């Protein structure tokens, strides 16, 4: 489908810089599989959350002071004196959590339907890069209010780099800009926290570019074969995503307006004090699974390597998963393994929030081992030996097959 504008201004612009045509292709006539379920909404929701975080973040930074003596009070100033400052700050803090919720669902959807497999490897990689950038951004953002958890979280995480042999200590000093987490650390974290979201925007554009080159995966995992299989993105998926957005915003607002501190930690309302260590230093919930993996290893360097390894192995997923069938719908064994893996990640999250004592240490170790066993051993083996269910010949056929069964389910 070529873009032929009628409006003379659009025509004039587009013949010189085809940006309107590009947007038209990306958002309007992008041929999309007709069978995408609501699990495919989370990508656009993640995009919305990125915008929410950037807009609220820019407003917050107008009132925030990145200095160890003033940061905590400036956040309280935002909460008390700035018009709707409380709204901006709670939106930003809860928005970070919601961003991770949405992205985790997006990632697990990709795992379930095999969205990482050829030809979508680069798309998957770019997604993981976004995820890593998000983690760095969220971590540094959490330091900015300069509460107790900010300070001690920053201390624990930056100290991890000290585990690197020989140069570790120098790297930590370099990260801190001094010999402890102090004002230079806070300043650079603020600077980078402002910078990285725009890097994320850049990678998101690449992510969407790659997506539109290879096309969306879908619940059947088979490619679009003819016109019958696809529908234009607009209006079908714009309106479906808008409905999804509405549902999501209601959940977001429930936290934002009625439990804005539920996902936070009370200790972060205590100003940072380098002389008093909190009883339990816990990261935000979205880091807990990785924190559990870190603590599962008694050796510091080993723990750090395993933690970064947990994400690194995800980059190898397209080649570790040998199955030629994408969707778990047609992979009876992988389907079960997927749910066990999800459960394993939830167990890791739970253990990550618990103090380092028995039985949590043991549970954490078992869950950590299983995490890697699933990805490095079970996935390749299942791909080789699993007998998949018969695949439908096309997306339209799958959609037609589904209809009567959907009715039955409705009657039941």
């Amino acid at each position, binding site marked *: 489908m070529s873009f032929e504008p009628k409006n003379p201004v659009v025509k004039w612009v587009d013949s010189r810089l085809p940006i309107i045509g590009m947007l038209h292709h990306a958002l309007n006539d992008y041929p999309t599989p007709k069978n995408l379920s609501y699990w495919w909404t989370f990508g656009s929701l993640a995009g919305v959350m990125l915008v929410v975080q950037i807009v609220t973040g820019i407003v917050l930074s107008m009132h925030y002071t990145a200095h160890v003596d003033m940061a905590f009070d400036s956040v309280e100033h935002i909460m008390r004196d700035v018009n709707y400052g409380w709204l901006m700050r709670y939106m930003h803090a809860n928005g970070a959590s919601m961003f991770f919720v949405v992205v985790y669902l997006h990632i697990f959807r990709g795992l379930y339907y095999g969205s990482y497999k050829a030809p979508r490897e680069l798309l998957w990689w770019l997604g993981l890069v976004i995820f890593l950038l998000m983690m760095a951004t969220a971590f540094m953002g959490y330091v900015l209010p300069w509460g107790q958890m900010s300070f001690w979280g920053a201390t624990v995480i930056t100290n991890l780099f000290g585990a690197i042999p020989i140069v570790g200590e120098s790297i930590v000093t370099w990260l801190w800009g001094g010999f402890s987490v102090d004002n230079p650390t806070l300043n650079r974290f603020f600077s980078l926290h402002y910078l990285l979201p725009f890097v994320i925007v850049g990678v998101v554009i690449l992510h969407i570019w790659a997506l539109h080159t290879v096309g969306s995966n879908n619940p059947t995992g088979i490619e679009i074969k003819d016109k019958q299989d696809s529908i234009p993105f607009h209006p079908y998926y714009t309106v479906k995503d808008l409905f999804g957005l509405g549902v999501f915003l209601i959940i977001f607002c429930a936290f934002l307006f009625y439990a804005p501190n539920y996902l936070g930690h009370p200790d972060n*309302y205590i100003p940072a004090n380098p002389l008093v260590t909190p009883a339990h230093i816990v990261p935000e919930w979205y880091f807990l699974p990785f924190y559990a993996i870190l603590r599962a290893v008694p050796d510091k360097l080993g723990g750090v390597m395993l933690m970064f390894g947990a994400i690194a192995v995800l980059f190898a997923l397209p080649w570790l998963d040998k199955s030629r069938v994408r969707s778990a719908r047609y992979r009876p064994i992988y389907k079960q393994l997927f749910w066990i893996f999800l459960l394993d990640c939830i167990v890791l999250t739970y253990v990550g929030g618990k103090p380092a004592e028995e039985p949590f240490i043991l549970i954490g170790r078992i869950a950590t081992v299983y995490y890697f066993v699933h990805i490095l051993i079970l996935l390749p083996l299942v791909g080789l030996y699993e007998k998949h269910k018969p695949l439908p010949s096309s997306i339209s056929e799958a959609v037609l097959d589904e209809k009567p069964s959907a009715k039955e389910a409705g009657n039941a």
Partner: protein
Amino acid sequence: MLKLIKSLSAAVLLSVVTLSGAQASGGGVDLKSVNWQHTGLFGTYDRAAAQRGLQVYQEVCAGCHGLNQVAFRTLQDLGFTEDEVKAIAKEYEFEGGPNDDGDMFDRAGKPFDKFPNPFANEKAARASNGGAFPPDLSLIVKARVGFEDYLYSLMTGYADTPEGFELTEGMSYNAYFPGHQIAMPAPISEEGVEYSDGTKATVDQMAKDVTVFLAWAAEPKLEQRKHMGLRVILFLLVMTGLFFAVKKKIWSDLH
């Protein structure tokens, strides 16, 4: 769709259980639970209780604890008039200046001032309190696991030292303080203040009142937030319903 809602709600439930389990590391003591008027979806601060709580703060807590995030002018939220706020501010003295000669001088407090700290610095506070540092109370309700219930339990949790418990010299036994040894002696006693509204100043009453006041101090925008939340969520419900209808309509030509 139904399946998605089912799995989503299961996931939400599971994560709530996981998280509340993950964060409930209070120390294993069950706090006394009070039905605060300001919690709940439509909850508002009990103005009378908060005003009495201010009195308790001023007459009992303020000797050792600061409230340095709270400006006098914001007391109008609790139902004080502008003149009453001016009068409250006037009770405190602040350093003003420098004047045209370059000298600092003492001046009476104004509504824009914040509650002054009782001590010049942390060292001075520790020196006067047997080495312990009385924390600022501006955010205390939000800064402790258990929130209002914890603060109320703590203030009413002083008891005789149980047999076999070794109490360090100068400390008090408290059933709810982590470790049960607290440097702060029981802060409130029967009739410790004389309430101007005639309420009987029992320990329980005073603890409740000052907790309401400090809850307000920690989260002064709570009412505004819930009020806006209700309107926003009602709007979103309608909007989402419309989107659903439009989605149905647009997709109907496909099926």
